[in-house]
């Protein structure tokens, strides 16, 4: 049953994506850990973490594409789910610091000692267990998305209105997480992590392990997403995207479909955030900023909305560009990003991959035209 589901979505494009990911999962550890440092094929730990960061963003983009590209929900608040997953992981890593903090308190993280708190708030309980934190990485973004989506979709908030209230949601969370008395480290967020699952978080082996975990998560999410899209559910989603009311008159509860995709997507974003935090070593409220969410949207748009591979490609390309620009020409980065937004919407509405797919789709169509019935030529 499950295998059939996974196989259903696997076409040639999926094969390419999964092969590339598999190669990354093998080659990167080898060239980092086994190839000597003076070889041209050696990858530094810094590069591995950078690649890992890109792939986390790719997973966020994949999640966003699932709702935007296939379900027509333009979320301007997806970074909120990413950040919530990140915070859940960050809380676990904070608990792992134990007495090694600046204040040496075995239970309380430094910022709580600094605030003169005497005991751990209830919502921090349980995060010392990895499995609990891992559950929360899925459950917290998922629950928020479910509650938000339940109300929003039921009352048929759509289009621009939905986008604006998702933005309001992440903005409210941004303000909330900035507050010190929320108990999430306020402005500074959570940082100074020491170890994950007993391994030193700075050690090359751990870094490579995190990278491989990210690749696996991305590959798994890709397979889930393409499995869904290939199923009848995926076809209903696309139908909802284009003509929602018509789908309702066929007897489908479109709200449930949107809620399913939306919640699943939020969980994926949460996983991306959880993998991101140990690799960059910090999570702070700026991840909630509306700008982060909109930036994720442009990754998807660049690669091509409605193509899963495009979302991954877009995220990696744009972030590579960002790393390059902010290093070499920091003044120009915002011009470049702004220009990218305008250029993509004006000239590349289907993104890089969409462009190719569009051209390919056109060829067999033109061939089939002469075979059509006479009714073809008539009509409009």
């Amino acid at each position, binding site marked *: 049953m499950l295998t059939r589901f996974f196989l259903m979505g696997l076409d040639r494009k999926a094969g390419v994506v999964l092969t590339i990911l598999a190669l990354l999962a093998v080659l990167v550890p080898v060239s980092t850990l086994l190839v000597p440092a003076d070889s041209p094929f050696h990858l530094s730990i810094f590069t591995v973490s950078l690649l890992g960061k890109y792939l986390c963003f790719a997973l966020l983009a994949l999640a966003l594409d699932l709702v935007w590209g296939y379900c027509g929900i333009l979320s301007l608040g997806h970074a909120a789910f990413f950040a919530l997953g990140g915070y859940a992981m960050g809380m676990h890593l904070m608990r792992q610091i134990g007495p090694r903090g600046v204040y040496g308190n075995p239970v309380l993280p430094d910022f709580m000692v600094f605030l003169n708190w005497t005991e751990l708030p209830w919502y921090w309980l349980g995060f010392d267990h990895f499995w609990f934190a891992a559950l929360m990485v899925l459950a917290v973004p998922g629950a928020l998305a479910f509650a938000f989506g339940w109300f929003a979709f039921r009352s048929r908030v759509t289009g621009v209105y939905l986008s604006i209230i998702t933005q309001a949601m992440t903005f409210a969370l941004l303000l909330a997480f900035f507050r010190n008395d929320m108990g999430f480290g306020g402005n500074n967020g959570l940082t100074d992590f020491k170890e994950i699952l007993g391994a030193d978080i700075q050690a090359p082996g751990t870094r490579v392990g995190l990278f491989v975990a990210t690749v696996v998560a991305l590959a798994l999410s890709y397979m889930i997403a393409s499995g869904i899209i290939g199923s009848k559910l995926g*076809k209903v989603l696309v139908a909802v995207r284009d003509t929602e009311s018509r789908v309702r008159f066929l007897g489908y509860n479109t709200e449930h479909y949107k809620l399913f995709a939306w919640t699943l997507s939020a969980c994926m974003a949460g996983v991306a955030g959880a993998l991101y935090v140990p690799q960059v070593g910090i999570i702070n409220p700026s991840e909630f900023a509306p700008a982060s969410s909109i930036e994720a949207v442009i990754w998807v748009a660049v690669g091509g909305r409605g193509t899963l591979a495009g979302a991954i490609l877009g995220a990696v390309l744009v972030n590579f560009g960002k790393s390059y620009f902010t290093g070499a020409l920091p003044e120009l980065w915002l011009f470049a990003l702004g220009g990218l937004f305008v250029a993509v919407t004006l000239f590349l509405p289907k993104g890089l991959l969409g462009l190719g797919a569009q051209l390919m789709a056109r060829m067999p169509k033109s061939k089939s035209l002469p075979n059509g019935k006479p009714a*073809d030529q*008539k009509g409009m």
Partner: protein
Amino acid sequence: MSAEDTLLYLDGVSVSFDGFRALNSLSLVMMPGEMRAIIGPNGAGKTTMMDVITGKTRPDHGTILFEGATDLTKLREASIANLGIGRKFQRPTVFEPHTVWDNLELALKAPRGPLKTLTYAIGRDDKARIEEILDVTRLSPKRDRIAGSLSHGEKQWLEIGMLLAQDPKLLLVDEPVAGMTDAETEQTAQLLCDIAGKHSVIVVEHDMSFVRALGVKVTVLAEGSVLAEGSLDAVSANQQVIDVYLGR
């Protein structure tokens, strides 16, 4: 008249938009297996009537009962559709990025929950049913075409096909022959008459020759309520009908 035994029972249904009364105490009864043609001038409330039956618009007043018992005014579109009321829109709306086959598969009577559709695998019966509908609607050669690339007439047929795939008890058909050739119009009339044996059908149409070809009871709507009811010849002779509609 009592609501029992009826398939669809509308009593005193009123709807207004910003002071404009689209439906004005409309009452209408459909028996199981009946086919009815509805005519009327623009703004008579034909489309609004379909909207209130299918749950798109909530009436301000009035009763709408399905099969004598189910109150449609309390339900949402999807639930109403699942009761067995199918609708074809005035402007053909099909799922343009999907193939003809996928359009029919989506419409095909089957469990409608997300998890059910996620694990749905098409069975032999369903395949046979889709093949059958493809034949009836003459879309067999175009089963793998993207619906968006069909001509206007083909889209009309595809939508009728989707309606058949839904296998509803009551079909609401809004201007099915708009944009069709005379031959296609005739075929459509024949198709609807075939369907009418097993299902109830309400057809809204302007095309008088089409209505005549259907040869069924006609209801004339004007200004949101029923003006006349009876055979086409009887209503055509009605002076009021001539004044508001036919005479113009």
